[in-house]
C-alpha cells in the first residue's frame, strides 16, 4: 500500500507539489499524468525518498518514508527519470552491484539476476559498459535494476521514454505481467500508455491533483464520449448528411474533419445516438464506409483539464 497525505514540496516560492493525497493498493497500476513540470517527478521522488517533502507524509508498505527510510526504500523498486546509471560499469557488474546493495545473496541472487537479464533481454550486452549502450538498452538496464529484488512496490518515472514502438510494447507487457501482485506507479505523458497499462490515472497539473479516475472513467468526461463518427462513400452526400445529422434532437454538435471528410456527431449529455444515426443513414440512403462509436478521447480530456 502506498499512502500519501497532503504531500507538499515548495522550492523557494515555487510550489512544485501541493497537497497531494492518494492511496494505491496491490494490483493497481497508477498512471501519473500531467504536462511537463506539473510535479510528477517531484511526487515520485518524494515517494522514493530522494526529495524530502516540505510538509505532509508518504507511507510505503507501512513504513513512513521520512521516519523509516531504509525499510521504505527496501520495499520499492525505483526507476529515476532518464534512468541514470553508472556509465563506466558493465551491465553485469552494475546489476550485481545493485543486487548486493539490495541484500540479495546466494542462489536467490543468482536466480533474480538471471531472471531480470532474461526478461529484459540483456544477455547480448552483459559485458558492454553502460555508456556504450543505446537508449533502449539503457532504459532496460534501468528497469532491470528496479525489479531485481522483486519489490512489492514499483515506481517508474517515464519507463518507456525514448523507446521505439516494439520496445514500448515489451516494457508495457512486462508491467502488465507484474501488475497482478504489485503496486505500480508510473508517470508518463503518453496517453496511449494509460489505456495500455493503467487501471487508474491521476492527472496532476501545477502540482495539484486535478483528476483521479479509471482510464474509462476519464474518457467519459470527454466531449467525444459516445460520439459517433462516420465516413461516407460518396463525398457529394456530405453536406446533406451534415444537415440531417445536426437536425437530430439527440445531437449536440457535428464536426467534419477537413483532412478526410470524417463526420463526427457529438451527443447531448447522456444521450445515445448510434441507433438514431444508423436509422438516419438507412432512411436517407447514405452509403457508409465506416461507422464508429467513440469511447472518448483521453488527449482531449487531458487538454481540457490541464490547459
Amino acid at each position: 500500500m502506498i499512502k500519501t497525505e497532503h504531500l507538499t514540496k515548495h522550492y523557494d516560492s515555487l510550489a512544485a507539489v501541493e497537497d497531494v493525497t492518494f492511496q494505491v493498493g496491490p494490483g493497481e497500476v497508477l498512471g501519473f499524468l500531467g504536462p511537463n513540470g506539473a510535479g510528477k517527478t517531484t511526487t515520485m521522488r518524494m515517494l522514493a525518498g530522494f526529495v524530502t517533502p516540505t510538509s505532509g507524509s508518504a507511507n510505503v508498505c507501512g513504513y513512513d518514508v521520512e521516519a523509516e527510510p531504509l525499510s521504505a526504500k527496501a520495499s520499492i523498486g525505483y526507476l529515476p527519470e532518464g534512468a541514470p546509471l553508472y556509465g563506466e560499469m558493465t551491465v553485469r557488474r552494475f546489476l550485481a552491484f545493485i543486487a548486493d546493495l539490495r541484500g540479495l545473496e546466494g542462489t536467490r541472487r543468482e536466480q533474480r539476476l538471471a531472471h531480470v537479464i532474461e526478461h529484459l533481454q540483456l544477455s547480448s550486452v552483459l559485458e558492454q559498459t553502460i555508456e556504450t549502450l543505446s537508449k533502449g538498452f539503457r532504459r532496460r538496464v534501468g528497469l532491470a535494476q528496479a525489479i531485481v529484488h522483486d519489490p512489492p512496490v514499483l515506481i517508474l518515472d517515464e519507463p518507456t521514454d525514448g523507446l521505439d514502438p516494439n520496445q514500448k510494447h515489451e516494457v508495457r507487457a512486462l508491467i502488465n505481467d507484474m501488475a497482478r501482485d504489485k503496486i505500480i506507479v508510473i508517470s508518463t505523458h503518453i496517453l496511449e500508455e494509460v489505456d495500455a497499462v493503467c487501471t487508474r490515472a491521476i492527472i496532476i497539473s501545477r502540482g495539484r491533483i486535478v483528476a483521479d479516475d479509471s482510464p474509462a472513467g476519464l474518457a467519459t468526461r470527454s466531449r467525444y464520449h459516445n460520439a459517433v463518427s462516420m465516413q461516407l462513400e460518396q463525398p457529394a452526400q456530405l453536406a446533406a448528411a451534415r444537415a440531417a445529422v445536426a437536425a437530430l434532437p439527440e445531437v449536440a454538435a457535428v464536426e467534419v474533419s477537413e483532412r478526410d471528410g470524417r463526420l463526427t456527431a457529438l451527443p447531448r449529455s447522456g444521450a445515445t445516438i448510434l441507433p438514431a444515426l444508423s436509422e438516419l443513414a438507412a432512411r436517407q440512403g447514405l452509403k457508409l464506409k465506416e461507422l464508429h462509436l467513440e469511447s472518448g478521447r483521453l488527449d482531449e480530456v487531458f487538454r481540457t483539464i490541464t490547459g
Partner: protein
Amino acid sequence: MRTVGIIMRRELASYFATPLAYVFILIFLVLANAFTFYLGGFYERGQADLDPFFSFHPWLYLFLIPAISMKLWAEERKSGSIELLMTMPVSLADAVLGKFLAAWIFTALALALTFPLWITVNFLGSPDNGAILAAYLGSLLLAGGFLSIGSCMSAMTRNQVVAFILGVVVCFVFLLAGFPLVLDLFRAWAPQALTDAIASLSFLTHYESIVKGVIDVRDLLYFAMLISFFLLATGIALELRKAD
C-alpha cells in the same frame, strides 16, 4: 557496514575503469621522485633518510588529491546517478564513508608504490625504518585529511572543476593555517585565542611532527577529528542539496 564495503568496491573499481587511476599514479610517482632527487637533494645531503621525499608530500597532495576527490559526488550529481544511489536502502553515512574509503585506499596504493625509494635508501645506508614507517603513516593521514575536504567540496557542486578549485583553496588554507600568509588575515581583527586556534589547525605542524618519527596521540586525534568533521559536512551538504 555491509553496504560501506559494497559502495567502496564499486567506487574503487570505477577509478580503474578509466585512465584516471593510471594517470594519477604515474604523475604522483614521477613528481614524488623528481622532487626528492632534484629539489630535495636526496644524494647531496648524504643522509640515509627519506626526509626530502616526505617534505614535498603536502605540496604534491595539494593539487593531486583534489583531482581524485573532485569526482566523488559532483560526478554522481551531474550524471544523476546520485538519485539511484540515494534511493537504495543505504544510509547516507554508509555512502559517504564508502566513497571516502575508496579514494583513501586508492591514494594508499599510490603511496605504497613509492617503495623502491625505501629500498634505495636501505641499500645506500641504514636509515631508521621505524621513522620511515611513521612518516608513511603521517603521509597517509595527511592524504586522508585532504580527501575529506575534497569530498565535502565535491558534495557542494555538480561541477567537477569547481570542486577541484574549492578543494585546492580549502586544502591550501588548512595546510598553511599556522603561517603568516593565513594568520595575518585573522590577526588584524580576531582575538588571540581564535588566531591560536586556527594556527593549531595547520596540517603542516601536525604532519611534520609525525614525519619526524614522533607519533603523538594528539596528532592522530587531530587527523581523525578533521576527517570526521569534513565527512559529516559532506553528509550535511548532500542532505541539503542532493536533489538540486
